[in-house]
């Protein structure tokens, strides 16, 4: 059992009539980066709160790092780090004071504190900012501060709730490099996101929609196993073509990408290129190419049903 840092079975959690999480089962392996991908309001934050013991499930079984929740939530806290979606350190304390506070809360001796703090400040590029108030920093800097506070006590398991939502692409790239460094050192990470490119970086991911897990596995496997073909069509009147194709049985969805239309065709169609060429709305001059599915395609095919 111990190869899984998180092992949850049939979790359910309701808020009044709202079923926030329905029958969620989850296994996260040690040392991996596991992603939660889903639109806003799909239950990502609730799932993370259940797994950190902040919320109690209505039913289901949770085991995190061998501690069974919610019973051992208090013991678990020393072993996990949690970075909240909203910046939750103190705006009116400096970078260093914030980190010192967290270090004391986790019971680091003043010697450990000193070495760990200078280590963190240099890893996360906050050396020059250490005397700046957290409230006056940019989104990227705050996010690095949050991460350094979350990993200060060297947790075995790290929960990150939409860590990059307020951060520019360059900082995001850097942030993910840092996550891989942590993962390399043996930290298991569970990260929620609604960015496809981030989800693709995870070792494994679960696609959530309205509290239900629609798919899980490594991004590659998900893309391979996706129940659809992807065809790109270059044509002159893409808006019209899209409307026509959406009515065709066998076409799941179509989305325009600049001068191309990306069409998802059901797996039951054996030759998707021939199938599309035969459509009356497709001109003979149009170019059709079958391409490799992207994670977005996986997302769209696995979550389409719930949407109206």
């Amino acid at each position, binding site marked *: 059992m111990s190869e899984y840092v998180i092992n949850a079975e049939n979790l359910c959690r309701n808020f009044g009539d709202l079923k926030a999480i329905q029958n969620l089962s989850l296994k996260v392996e040690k040392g991996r980066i596991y992603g939660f991908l889903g639109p806003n309001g799909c239950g990502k934050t609730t799932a993370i709160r259940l797994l950190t013991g902040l919320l109690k499930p209505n039913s289901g079984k949770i085991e995190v790092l061998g501690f069974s929740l919610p019973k051992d939530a208090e013991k678990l806290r020393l072993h996990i780090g949690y970075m909240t979606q909203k910046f939750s*350190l103190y705006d009116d304390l400096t970078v260093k004071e914030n980190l010192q506070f967290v270090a004391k809360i986790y*019971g680091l001796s003043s010697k450990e504190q000193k070495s760990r703090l200078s280590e963190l400040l240099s890893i996360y590029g906050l050396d020059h900012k250490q005397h700046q108030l957290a409230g006056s920093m940019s989104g990227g800097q705050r996010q690095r501060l949050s991460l350094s506070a979350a990993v200060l006590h060297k947790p075995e398991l790290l929960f990150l709730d939409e860590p990059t939502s307020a951060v520019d692409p360059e900082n995001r790239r850097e942030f993910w490099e840092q996550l891989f460094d942590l993962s390399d050192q043996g930290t298991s990470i569970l990260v929620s996101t609604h960015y496809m490119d981030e989800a693709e970086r995870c070792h494994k991911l679960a696609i959530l929609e309205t509290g239900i897990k629609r798919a899980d596995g490594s991004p590659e496997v998900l893309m391979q196993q996706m129940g659809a073909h992807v065809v790109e069509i270059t044509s002159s009147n893409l808006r019209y073509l899209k409307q026509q194709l959406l009515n065709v049985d066998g076409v799941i969805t179509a989305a325009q990408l600049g001068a191309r239309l990306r069409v998802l065709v059901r797996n039951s169609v054996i030759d998707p290129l021939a199938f599309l060429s035969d459509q009356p709305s497709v001109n003979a001059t149009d170019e059709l190419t079958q391409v490799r599915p992207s994670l977005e395609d996986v997302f769209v095919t696995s979550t389409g049903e719930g949407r109206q």
Partner: protein
Amino acid sequence: MKSLYRIYAIFKKELTQLKRDRMTFGMVIMIPLIQLMLFGYAINTNVRHIPVGIVDHSNTGLSRILVQTISATQVVNFVEHYDSLEQGEAAISKSEVRAILVIPKDVSQRLARHPTVGFGLPPSSDQVTSRPIAHWLVDGSDTIVAGAIKSLRSMPLTELLSKPANRNTPTFEVTLLYNPEQRSAVNIVPGLVAVILTMTMIMFTSAAIVREREHGNLEMLITTPVRSIELMLGKIIPYMFIGSVQVTIILGLGYLLFDVPINGSLMQLAAATFIFITASLALGLVISTIATNQLQSMQMTIFILLPSILLSGFMFPYEGMPEIAQIISEGLPATHFLRLIRGVVLRDVEIFDMNYDVYWLIIFTLAGLALASIRFKKNLD
């Protein structure tokens, strides 16, 4: 050990935040300073210089001397003459004056027959031969003002006739202990300690946890190993210091400006104050676990503050309140502290001679801390 360390962490963080919050820091000093000046000078139950009018039907030298004699008491100021009773009554209803003195035509005869003058001694029950020499018409809606004028009812008239006072032997001898000059400030200043501490202590702590919740810090805190009781204690310790500073300001200035003596020992004073501060802080913490935002916590603070001012014995004597109000009053920490601090500051009692109030406050504190720790759950359910 770890636990103490975590309390220290919260304490230090709270102190740093407080240091940065200039406004709050300023309020800590300014609230007691300004309120002491304001109330110390303003609240005075010995009413002086009440504006009154006069309707003089006799218009004699005697009536003028009578008016001067009354003015000399400083209780009233004659501000206006009215020709008739009607005009005088109209002036009262328009609030131009608080009362009018009606001097009858026959004031000199009345005075001559008045027992204090001592020409013969007619039986006092004889209304025909012995009548009051003049008549006050008073706006009785304010009981304190009315009382002050009522006190003139039997003022000595010896100066009027430059005769020695007739020797009435009083029924009782009265000795006023602790405040022989009857200065209001002596009673008000120690009372202000109770009111100001109630206000600032409950306000600061009730906002303390609510603010963390509003800013989202709580979600981070509850994923750390910090326990609720540690969080509570770490949060209230800085305010204990603030409370002590405020008490020092109030009593120190009370001594310097209003000459309020501190008769009891400073140790006793510190002990009484400490018990009350912790009780108020515990109450503030309970509020902060109930309120969901700072506005709500402020409303609840006011809800406690008003009865603490009006029912605790600060404004009106406890003994004068009906039984139900006394029961409510007993439920307020300010009531018990008020008894203790007046006892220590004015009467030099040892606080453990006032066991009941001491134990009440200690039990209140422990119950409050326990309730706050139980109510503050370390999850988001």
